[in-house]
Protein backbone atom coordinates (compact mmCIF):
# COMPACT_ATOMS: atom_id res chain seq x y z
CA UNK A 1 0.00 0.00 0.00
CA UNK A 2 1.13 3.52 -0.61
CA UNK A 3 0.13 4.80 2.83
CA UNK A 4 3.62 6.14 3.46
CA UNK A 5 4.09 7.54 6.95
CA UNK A 6 0.40 7.45 7.88
CA UNK A 7 -0.48 5.31 10.88
CA UNK A 8 -3.80 3.53 11.14
CA UNK A 9 -4.93 6.16 13.64
CA UNK A 10 -4.19 8.83 11.02
CA UNK A 11 -6.25 6.96 8.46
CA UNK A 12 -9.12 6.63 10.90
CA UNK A 13 -9.01 10.35 11.67
CA UNK A 14 -8.98 11.19 7.95
CA UNK A 15 -11.94 8.88 7.47
CA UNK A 16 -13.92 10.45 10.33
CA UNK A 17 -13.32 13.94 8.98
CA UNK A 18 -14.36 13.18 5.41
CA UNK A 19 -16.69 10.17 5.32
CA UNK A 20 -19.91 12.19 5.45
CA UNK A 21 -18.72 14.37 2.56
CA UNK A 22 -17.81 11.38 0.37
CA UNK A 23 -20.86 9.25 1.19
CA UNK A 24 -23.21 12.16 0.53
CA UNK A 25 -21.43 12.91 -2.75
CA UNK A 26 -22.17 9.30 -3.69
CA UNK A 27 -25.82 9.74 -2.74
CA UNK A 28 -26.09 12.88 -4.83
CA UNK A 29 -24.45 11.28 -7.84
CA UNK A 30 -26.12 7.88 -7.73
CA UNK A 31 -29.35 8.42 -5.73
CA UNK A 32 -28.93 4.93 -4.32
CA UNK A 33 -27.62 4.03 -0.84
CA UNK A 34 -26.08 0.73 -1.91
CA UNK A 35 -24.25 2.33 -4.78
CA UNK A 36 -23.18 5.29 -2.64
CA UNK A 37 -21.68 2.83 -0.12
CA UNK A 38 -19.88 0.90 -2.82
CA UNK A 39 -18.61 4.14 -4.34
CA UNK A 40 -17.39 5.51 -1.00
CA UNK A 41 -15.58 2.25 -0.28
CA UNK A 42 -13.83 2.38 -3.66
CA UNK A 43 -12.84 6.00 -3.06
CA UNK A 44 -11.27 5.32 0.35
CA UNK A 45 -9.46 2.17 -0.74
CA UNK A 46 -8.00 4.02 -3.71
CA UNK A 47 -7.21 7.16 -1.69
CA UNK A 48 -5.45 5.24 1.11
CA UNK A 49 -3.57 3.29 -1.50
CA UNK A 50 -2.37 6.53 -3.10
CA UNK A 51 -1.64 8.48 0.05
CA UNK A 52 2.01 8.73 -0.89
CA UNK A 53 0.92 10.81 -3.89
CA UNK A 54 -0.81 13.32 -1.63
CA UNK A 55 1.79 16.06 -1.34
CA UNK A 56 0.03 18.17 1.26
CA UNK A 57 -0.20 21.21 -1.03
CA UNK A 58 -3.95 21.33 -0.46
CA UNK A 59 -6.15 20.08 2.36
CA UNK A 60 -6.60 16.31 2.44
CA UNK A 61 -10.37 16.75 2.12
CA UNK A 62 -9.92 18.83 -1.07
CA UNK A 63 -7.63 16.22 -2.59
CA UNK A 64 -9.99 13.41 -1.61
CA UNK A 65 -13.08 15.23 -2.93
CA UNK A 66 -11.38 15.81 -6.26
CA UNK A 67 -10.40 12.13 -6.48
CA UNK A 68 -13.93 11.08 -5.51
CA UNK A 69 -15.53 13.39 -8.05
CA UNK A 70 -13.30 11.97 -10.81
CA UNK A 71 -14.14 8.42 -9.79
CA UNK A 72 -17.86 9.19 -9.54
CA UNK A 73 -18.08 10.83 -12.94
CA UNK A 74 -16.00 8.04 -14.51
CA UNK A 75 -18.40 5.52 -13.04
CA UNK A 76 -21.37 7.44 -14.44
CA UNK A 77 -19.75 7.59 -17.88
CA UNK A 78 -18.98 3.87 -17.82
CA UNK A 79 -22.56 3.09 -16.83
CA UNK A 80 -23.70 5.19 -19.81
CA UNK A 81 -26.24 6.97 -17.66
CA UNK A 82 -26.04 10.18 -19.62
CA UNK A 83 -28.34 9.35 -22.49
CA UNK A 84 -31.52 11.36 -22.93
CA UNK A 85 -34.40 8.99 -22.46
CA UNK A 86 -37.23 9.66 -24.86
CA UNK A 87 -40.72 9.65 -23.49
CA UNK A 88 -39.78 9.11 -19.86
CA UNK A 89 -40.45 12.66 -18.91
CA UNK A 90 -43.44 13.52 -21.03
CA UNK A 91 -45.25 10.41 -19.86
CA UNK A 92 -45.46 11.81 -16.35
CA UNK A 93 -46.69 15.25 -17.34
CA UNK A 94 -50.30 15.95 -16.51
CA UNK A 95 -52.48 18.82 -17.65
CA UNK A 96 -51.67 21.74 -15.40
CA UNK A 97 -54.31 22.46 -12.79
CA UNK A 98 -52.48 24.81 -10.48
CA UNK A 99 -55.63 26.13 -8.86
CA UNK A 100 -56.27 22.78 -7.19
CA UNK A 101 -53.15 23.12 -5.06
CA UNK A 102 -52.70 25.35 -2.09
CA UNK A 103 -49.61 27.53 -1.93
CA UNK A 104 -46.80 25.70 -0.16
CA UNK A 105 -44.55 27.11 2.52
CA UNK A 106 -40.96 27.93 1.57
CA UNK A 107 -39.62 24.84 3.34
CA UNK A 108 -42.21 22.62 1.68
CA UNK A 109 -41.34 24.14 -1.67
CA UNK A 110 -37.67 23.33 -1.20
CA UNK A 111 -38.54 19.76 -0.28
CA UNK A 112 -40.81 19.36 -3.30
CA UNK A 113 -38.10 20.75 -5.59
CA UNK A 114 -35.54 18.35 -4.09
CA UNK A 115 -37.90 15.40 -4.54
CA UNK A 116 -38.67 16.32 -8.12
CA UNK A 117 -34.98 16.87 -8.83
CA UNK A 118 -34.24 13.38 -7.56
CA UNK A 119 -36.84 12.03 -10.00
CA UNK A 120 -35.22 13.64 -13.03
CA UNK A 121 -33.29 11.39 -15.42
CA UNK A 122 -29.53 11.54 -14.73
CA UNK A 123 -28.87 13.27 -18.00
CA UNK A 124 -30.74 16.35 -16.77
CA UNK A 125 -30.17 15.99 -13.03
CA UNK A 126 -26.38 15.66 -13.01
CA UNK A 127 -25.60 18.85 -14.97
CA UNK A 128 -27.89 20.80 -12.60
CA UNK A 129 -26.10 19.30 -9.59
CA UNK A 130 -22.64 19.92 -10.95
CA UNK A 131 -23.49 23.49 -11.86
CA UNK A 132 -25.40 24.62 -8.80
CA UNK A 133 -24.00 22.38 -6.06
CA UNK A 134 -20.44 21.75 -7.19
CA UNK A 135 -20.14 25.23 -8.76
CA UNK A 136 -18.39 23.84 -11.84
CA UNK A 137 -18.20 25.89 -15.01
CA UNK A 138 -19.99 24.77 -18.17
CA UNK A 139 -16.72 23.91 -19.86
CA UNK A 140 -15.60 21.82 -16.88
CA UNK A 141 -18.91 19.95 -16.66
CA UNK A 142 -18.89 19.33 -20.40
CA UNK A 143 -15.36 17.95 -20.21
CA UNK A 144 -16.06 15.75 -17.18
CA UNK A 145 -19.26 14.34 -18.67
CA UNK A 146 -17.69 13.99 -22.12
CA UNK A 147 -20.38 16.02 -23.89
CA UNK A 148 -20.19 19.17 -25.98
CA UNK A 149 -20.87 22.46 -24.25
CA UNK A 150 -23.89 23.12 -26.49
CA UNK A 151 -25.32 19.71 -25.60
CA UNK A 152 -24.77 20.41 -21.93
CA UNK A 153 -26.65 23.69 -22.17
CA UNK A 154 -29.54 21.97 -23.88
CA UNK A 155 -29.61 19.40 -21.04
CA UNK A 156 -29.71 22.22 -18.50
CA UNK A 157 -32.49 23.93 -20.41
CA UNK A 158 -34.50 20.75 -20.72
CA UNK A 159 -33.94 19.82 -17.08
CA UNK A 160 -35.20 23.18 -15.87
CA UNK A 161 -38.17 23.08 -18.24
CA UNK A 162 -39.23 19.64 -17.00
CA UNK A 163 -38.79 20.65 -13.39
CA UNK A 164 -40.72 23.87 -13.96
CA UNK A 165 -43.64 21.97 -15.48
CA UNK A 166 -43.71 19.36 -12.77
CA UNK A 167 -43.41 21.88 -9.98
CA UNK A 168 -46.22 23.98 -11.39
CA UNK A 169 -48.42 20.93 -11.06
CA UNK A 170 -47.34 20.54 -7.45
CA UNK A 171 -48.18 24.07 -6.45
CA UNK A 172 -44.66 25.49 -6.48
CA UNK A 173 -45.05 28.91 -8.03
CA UNK A 174 -42.16 31.28 -8.46
Amino acid sequence: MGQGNYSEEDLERLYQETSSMIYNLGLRLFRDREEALDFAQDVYVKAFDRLDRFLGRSKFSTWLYSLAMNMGLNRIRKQKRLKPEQGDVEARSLPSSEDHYERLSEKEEVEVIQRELAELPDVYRLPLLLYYYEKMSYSEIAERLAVKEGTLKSYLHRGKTILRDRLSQKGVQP
Partner: protein
Amino acid sequence: VTREDKQKKPSPRHYIDEIRTDPQAIPLDGWRHIHNCSLCRREWRFVVKLERAINELPQEEVPRILKQSIWRNLREPALRPVFAVWTFLVPILALFLAPLIIRYFISLAWLPLSPSWELFFILFSTFWGMVLVTAMAVQILDQHKSLAEKLEQGVEQILPGSKHDNFP
Protein backbone atom coordinates in the same frame (compact mmCIF):
# COMPACT_ATOMS: atom_id res chain seq x y z
CA VAL B 1 -53.00 53.68 -30.26
CA THR B 2 -55.16 51.62 -32.56
CA ARG B 3 -55.39 47.86 -32.58
CA GLU B 4 -53.51 47.82 -35.89
CA ASP B 5 -50.66 49.81 -34.34
CA LYS B 6 -50.51 47.34 -31.47
CA GLN B 7 -50.34 44.45 -33.91
CA LYS B 8 -47.51 46.11 -35.78
CA LYS B 9 -45.49 46.65 -32.57
CA PRO B 10 -42.93 43.86 -32.19
CA SER B 11 -43.42 41.62 -29.16
CA PRO B 12 -40.77 42.10 -26.44
CA ARG B 13 -37.82 39.75 -26.47
CA HIS B 14 -38.04 37.46 -23.47
CA TYR B 15 -35.02 35.83 -21.81
CA ILE B 16 -36.58 32.60 -20.60
CA ASP B 17 -34.35 30.41 -22.78
CA GLU B 18 -31.22 32.25 -21.63
CA ILE B 19 -32.27 31.99 -18.00
CA ARG B 20 -32.71 28.26 -18.38
CA THR B 21 -29.57 27.77 -20.43
CA ASP B 22 -26.86 30.23 -19.46
CA PRO B 23 -27.84 33.17 -17.23
CA GLN B 24 -24.24 34.40 -17.22
CA ALA B 25 -24.53 35.18 -20.92
CA ILE B 26 -27.49 37.55 -20.44
CA PRO B 27 -26.47 41.12 -21.34
CA LEU B 28 -27.19 44.14 -19.15
CA ASP B 29 -30.21 45.07 -21.28
CA GLY B 30 -31.50 41.57 -20.73
CA TRP B 31 -31.37 41.98 -16.97
CA ARG B 32 -33.24 45.29 -17.28
CA HIS B 33 -35.91 43.46 -19.25
CA ILE B 34 -36.07 40.62 -16.71
CA HIS B 35 -36.52 43.17 -13.93
CA ASN B 36 -39.49 44.72 -15.69
CA CYS B 37 -41.08 41.64 -17.30
CA SER B 38 -43.29 39.53 -15.04
CA LEU B 39 -42.85 36.44 -17.22
CA CYS B 40 -39.05 36.54 -17.17
CA ARG B 41 -38.97 37.56 -13.52
CA ARG B 42 -41.01 34.47 -12.58
CA GLU B 43 -38.61 32.32 -14.54
CA TRP B 44 -35.64 33.86 -12.77
CA ARG B 45 -37.29 33.37 -9.38
CA PHE B 46 -37.76 29.71 -10.23
CA VAL B 47 -34.06 29.33 -11.04
CA VAL B 48 -33.15 31.00 -7.74
CA LYS B 49 -35.44 28.60 -5.87
CA LEU B 50 -33.94 25.67 -7.71
CA GLU B 51 -30.42 26.77 -6.82
CA ARG B 52 -31.40 27.15 -3.18
CA ALA B 53 -33.05 23.71 -3.12
CA ILE B 54 -29.95 22.11 -4.65
CA ASN B 55 -27.64 23.85 -2.20
CA GLU B 56 -29.80 22.67 0.70
CA LEU B 57 -29.91 19.03 -0.34
CA PRO B 58 -30.18 16.95 2.84
CA GLN B 59 -27.13 15.16 4.21
CA GLU B 60 -27.48 11.58 5.39
CA GLU B 61 -25.59 9.93 8.19
CA VAL B 62 -22.88 7.53 7.08
CA PRO B 63 -23.79 3.88 7.75
CA ARG B 64 -21.34 2.14 10.13
CA ILE B 65 -20.92 -0.67 7.64
CA LEU B 66 -18.94 1.64 5.36
CA LYS B 67 -16.03 1.93 7.77
CA GLN B 68 -16.02 -1.81 8.42
CA SER B 69 -16.01 -2.65 4.75
CA ILE B 70 -13.21 -0.18 3.96
CA TRP B 71 -10.94 -1.54 6.68
CA ARG B 72 -11.75 -5.13 5.76
CA ASN B 73 -10.80 -4.32 2.20
CA LEU B 74 -7.55 -2.67 3.29
CA ARG B 75 -6.61 -5.68 5.42
CA GLU B 76 -7.67 -8.36 2.97
CA PRO B 77 -7.18 -7.08 -0.55
CA ALA B 78 -8.39 -9.37 -3.28
CA LEU B 79 -5.47 -11.48 -4.45
CA ARG B 80 -5.80 -10.53 -8.06
CA PRO B 81 -2.86 -10.44 -10.41
CA VAL B 82 -1.78 -6.99 -11.55
CA PHE B 83 -1.35 -8.18 -15.11
CA ALA B 84 -2.91 -10.97 -17.10
CA VAL B 85 -0.45 -13.72 -18.03
CA TRP B 86 -0.44 -12.76 -21.71
CA THR B 87 0.78 -9.25 -20.91
CA PHE B 88 3.88 -10.82 -19.41
CA LEU B 89 4.35 -13.47 -22.10
CA VAL B 90 4.03 -11.18 -25.12
CA PRO B 91 7.15 -9.08 -24.35
CA ILE B 92 9.14 -12.26 -23.67
CA LEU B 93 8.04 -13.73 -26.98
CA ALA B 94 8.82 -10.42 -28.69
CA LEU B 95 12.23 -10.45 -27.07
CA PHE B 96 13.10 -13.78 -28.70
CA LEU B 97 11.19 -13.41 -31.95
CA ALA B 98 12.25 -9.89 -32.95
CA PRO B 99 15.89 -10.77 -33.80
CA LEU B 100 14.73 -13.90 -35.66
CA ILE B 101 12.20 -11.91 -37.70
CA ILE B 102 14.80 -9.27 -38.58
CA ARG B 103 17.24 -12.01 -39.56
CA TYR B 104 14.57 -13.69 -41.71
CA PHE B 105 13.77 -10.51 -43.64
CA ILE B 106 17.45 -9.89 -44.21
CA SER B 107 17.86 -13.41 -45.57
CA LEU B 108 15.01 -12.71 -48.04
CA ALA B 109 16.84 -9.56 -49.07
CA TRP B 110 13.76 -7.48 -48.14
CA LEU B 111 15.92 -5.52 -45.74
CA PRO B 112 19.18 -4.76 -47.55
CA LEU B 113 21.17 -4.04 -44.43
CA SER B 114 24.86 -4.08 -43.85
CA PRO B 115 26.03 -6.49 -41.12
CA SER B 116 26.60 -3.58 -38.71
CA TRP B 117 23.01 -2.28 -39.20
CA GLU B 118 21.72 -5.80 -38.86
CA LEU B 119 23.51 -6.11 -35.53
CA PHE B 120 22.20 -2.72 -34.46
CA PHE B 121 18.56 -3.64 -35.15
CA ILE B 122 18.89 -6.96 -33.38
CA LEU B 123 20.45 -5.34 -30.32
CA PHE B 124 17.88 -2.52 -30.42
CA SER B 125 14.90 -4.88 -30.46
CA THR B 126 16.50 -7.03 -27.76
CA PHE B 127 17.09 -3.98 -25.61
CA TRP B 128 13.43 -2.82 -25.75
CA GLY B 129 12.21 -6.34 -25.12
CA MET B 130 14.37 -6.44 -22.00
CA VAL B 131 13.08 -3.05 -20.87
CA LEU B 132 9.49 -4.25 -21.15
CA VAL B 133 10.19 -7.49 -19.29
CA THR B 134 12.05 -5.63 -16.54
CA ALA B 135 9.19 -3.16 -16.09
CA MET B 136 6.73 -6.04 -15.76
CA ALA B 137 8.95 -7.84 -13.29
CA VAL B 138 9.32 -4.74 -11.11
CA GLN B 139 5.55 -4.25 -11.01
CA ILE B 140 4.95 -7.85 -10.03
CA LEU B 141 7.62 -7.76 -7.31
CA ASP B 142 6.12 -4.54 -5.99
CA GLN B 143 2.69 -6.14 -5.82
CA HIS B 144 4.06 -9.13 -3.93
CA LYS B 145 5.86 -6.82 -1.54
CA SER B 146 2.71 -4.87 -0.68
CA LEU B 147 0.78 -8.14 -0.27
CA ALA B 148 3.46 -9.36 2.14
CA GLU B 149 3.17 -6.10 4.11
CA LYS B 150 -0.58 -6.46 4.35
CA LEU B 151 -0.25 -10.06 5.52
CA GLU B 152 2.24 -8.92 8.14
CA GLN B 153 -0.24 -6.30 9.36
CA GLY B 154 -2.95 -8.96 9.49
CA VAL B 155 -0.76 -11.18 11.67
CA GLU B 156 -0.01 -8.26 14.02
CA GLN B 157 -3.72 -7.63 14.45
CA ILE B 158 -4.57 -11.14 15.61
CA LEU B 159 -1.62 -11.45 18.02
CA PRO B 160 -2.44 -10.70 21.68
CA GLY B 161 -1.20 -7.29 22.81
CA SER B 162 -1.03 -6.05 19.28
CA LYS B 163 -0.94 -2.28 18.81
CA HIS B 164 -3.96 -2.61 16.50
CA ASP B 165 -6.30 -3.96 19.19
CA ASN B 166 -8.58 -0.93 19.12
CA PHE B 167 -8.79 -0.80 15.38
CA PRO B 168 -12.25 -1.27 13.87
